[in-house]
């Protein structure tokens, strides 16, 4: 009988990484700074503070896997690297399925590797709201992150046919399309970004900031789930958690950094008893709702050979829409189709002639993360404004794909007919598709412990310091006051670098 089991074989661990195999009883640890979460924010803070000489412990709920552990076994990767097998749901109509990484390196292990600075228009918006963050002030932090994770354009030979078709379509329409900047060192186009890069080319936190943190003396405790931040009054004093083997793990620290992502950070703050004067912990959830279309061509595309998302269509960026080609393995694609039986087989036999194209929408709706029995539950209702934007985006994206030679396009909403021409794509706009009709997914959750100058309206200051708490800093996408309209990893890392600089500059206040 089949049972759930670890699918990845965990090999030797580097010095400084401890897992459930190393914790043989209840454990108490001491350090200067404990960082909860090892993703984009946590790993960056850990590396910067370790190099500055602080004694840092990173606590990560997921396990430690190395590049050699990442294989072509898609579902095994999903089971091991994604929280809830990648099937976590934000409640709403439609429900929004979202994915979070759960491994050392966090979601950087499973993201597409897009590395974009926060758009200036967004930083301007934040600055106008009173935050002391400007494009100029952020520049050195972006530069530092980009150097560390090797942000670069793609090698031309690594760009696959699906992306070339996207470019062909954009060029035919005269639309702006740009090469994606990605954190990669000679990506060779395995197109497995979302399942752990098996070539080591993607410079996720797992192969960049985490090794750096370890090199400068940080310790990483994997397989430990933090239950709560301990505190003395308003002062954070460490964390209490449990190892995967069931042992208690306590870390006593002078400073606590919460970097668990926009879903889990607010829940951790709430169940640890921290209250924001604004009452806004868990509010302001943005999700960059994402929909996909499948275009079928006459000729082979073989989209699984070549870099993931080599280009981005930026023509409609100002309207909050980005398009990209996002190949997925057959199993993941099959589960997104409503077809079954013979019809599914007839569709899937055309897999090699498909281009899967996705669209990111900068949302105007906000949801909320509530903490129920200590666990986070996201609630998010796609609003009609964003649904209308998605509808327009699907129409435009379909036009682009037809311009590149697509013969049929399958759409992401209930009961939708296939499109057979660009005219069909334009006619999509004739009838409003209600919000509840969409199939929406996302990997960009933001905003639930938002920074702001006004403590009565925000949860933290611009460095992530939690208002009305002492020695507690947030360093993840929870901080974003608004959605940013592009992939958030670099923004998280840059803000985390800025927070680390603030901590170093004010070490007596934070770590004495």
């Amino acid at each position, binding site marked *: 009988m089949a049972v759930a089991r670890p699918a990845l074989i965990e090999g030797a661990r580097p010095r400084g990484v401890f897992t459930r195999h190393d914790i043989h009883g209840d454990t108490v640890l001491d350090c200067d700074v404990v960082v909860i979460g090892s993703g984009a924010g946590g790993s960056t803070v850990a590396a910067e503070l370790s190099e500055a000489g602080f004694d840092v412990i990173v606590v990560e709920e997921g396990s430690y896997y190395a590049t050699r552990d990442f294989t072509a076994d898609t579902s095994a990767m999903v*089971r091991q690297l994604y929280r809830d097998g990648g099937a976590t749901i934000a409640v709403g109509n439609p429900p929004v399925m979202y994915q979070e990484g759960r491994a050392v390196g966090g979601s950087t292990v499973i993201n597409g590797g897009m590395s974009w600075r926060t758009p200036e228009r967004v930083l301007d918006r934040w600055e106008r709201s009173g935050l002391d963050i400007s494009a100029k002030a952020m520049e050195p932090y972006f530069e530092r992150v980009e150097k560390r994770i090797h942000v670069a354009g793609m090698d031309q030979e690594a760009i696959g046919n699906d992306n070339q078709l996207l470019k062909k379509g954009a060029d035919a329409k005269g639309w702006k399309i740009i090469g994606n900047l990605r954190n990669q060192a000679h990506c060779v186009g395995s197109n497995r970004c979302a399942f752990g890069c098996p070539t*080591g080319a993607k410079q996720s936190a797992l192969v960049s900031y985490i090794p750096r943190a370890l090199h400068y003396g940080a310790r990483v405790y994997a397989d430990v789930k933090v239950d709560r931040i301990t505190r003395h009054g308003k002062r954070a004093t460490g964390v209490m958690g449990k190892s995967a083997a069931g042992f208690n793990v306590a870390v006593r620290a002078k400073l606590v950094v919460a970097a668990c992502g926009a879903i889990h950070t607010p829940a951790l703050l709430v169940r640890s008893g921290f209250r924001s004067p604004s009452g806004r912990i868990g509010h302001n959830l943005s999700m960059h709702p994402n929909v996909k279309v499948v275009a079928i061509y006459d000729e082979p595309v073989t989209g699984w050979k070549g870099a993931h998302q080599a280009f981005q269509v930026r023509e409609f960026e100002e309207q909050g829409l980005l398009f990209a080609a996002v190949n997925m393995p057959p199993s993941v694609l099959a589960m997104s189709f409503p077809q079954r039986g013979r019809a599914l087989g007839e569709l899937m036999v055309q897999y090699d002639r498909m281009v899967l194209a996705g669209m990111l929408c900068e949302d105007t709706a906000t949801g909320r993360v509530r903490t129920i029995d200590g666990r986070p539950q996201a609630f998010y209702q796609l609003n009609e404004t964003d649904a209308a934007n998605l509808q327009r985006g699907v129409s435009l994206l379909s036009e682009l794909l037809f311009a590149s030679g697509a013969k049929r396009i399958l759409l992401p909403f209930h009961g939708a007919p296939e499109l057979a021409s660009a005219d069909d794509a334009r006619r999509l706009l004739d009838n409003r598709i209600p919000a509840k009709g969409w199939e929406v997914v996302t990997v960009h959750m933001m905003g639930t412990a938002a920074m702001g100058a006004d403590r009565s309206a925000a949860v933290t200051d611009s460095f992530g310091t939690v208002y009305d708490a002492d020695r507690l800093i947030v360093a993840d996408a929870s901080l974003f006051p608004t959605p940013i309209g592009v992939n958030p990893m670099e923004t998280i890392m840059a803000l985390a670098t800025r927070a680390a600089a603030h901590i170093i500059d004010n070490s007596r206040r934070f770590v004495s």
Partner: protein
Amino acid sequence: MTYHHSSTARAVLRSLVPVICPPEAAHLADAIVDHMALTIGALPSLAAKGLAAGLVTYDLGALVRYGRRASRLGPVQAEAYYASWEHGITPVHVQFAKGINQLMSLSCYEQPEMMEACGYRAAGWIEQVTKKRLTVFADDVRKQNEQILAPDPLRPSLKKEVA
């Protein structure tokens, strides 16, 4: 979470393979159902429990209409019964049918034979490009690995000032 199919769940899922999977996957039914157990085990426990309860309900629900359990229906009746849930009378029926369709389709196309039929040969491709990266770009890869560890303090002039 460790998850095992109950005998009822296994029988129901086994009977749904011809309904949800393409005919060419029929001989892979046991492997598909086994694979589903792995996937369900990774889901939130509430979802896994809901699915398990749903499968029992689905099985017994057929008694009302056909006088036999879903797992014992013939092909035509099995198709009609699943379709009645797929277009069901309540959103719960619809979501359950959709969820089973998704999980089973995923497991079906995770079978090596089905991936091969799609032309998807990722393992060989990964091996090929990994080798290329480590040979053609060996110098650049080494430089990046060195850069990751090279000293580059965020605040060069400051030493740790912890009392």
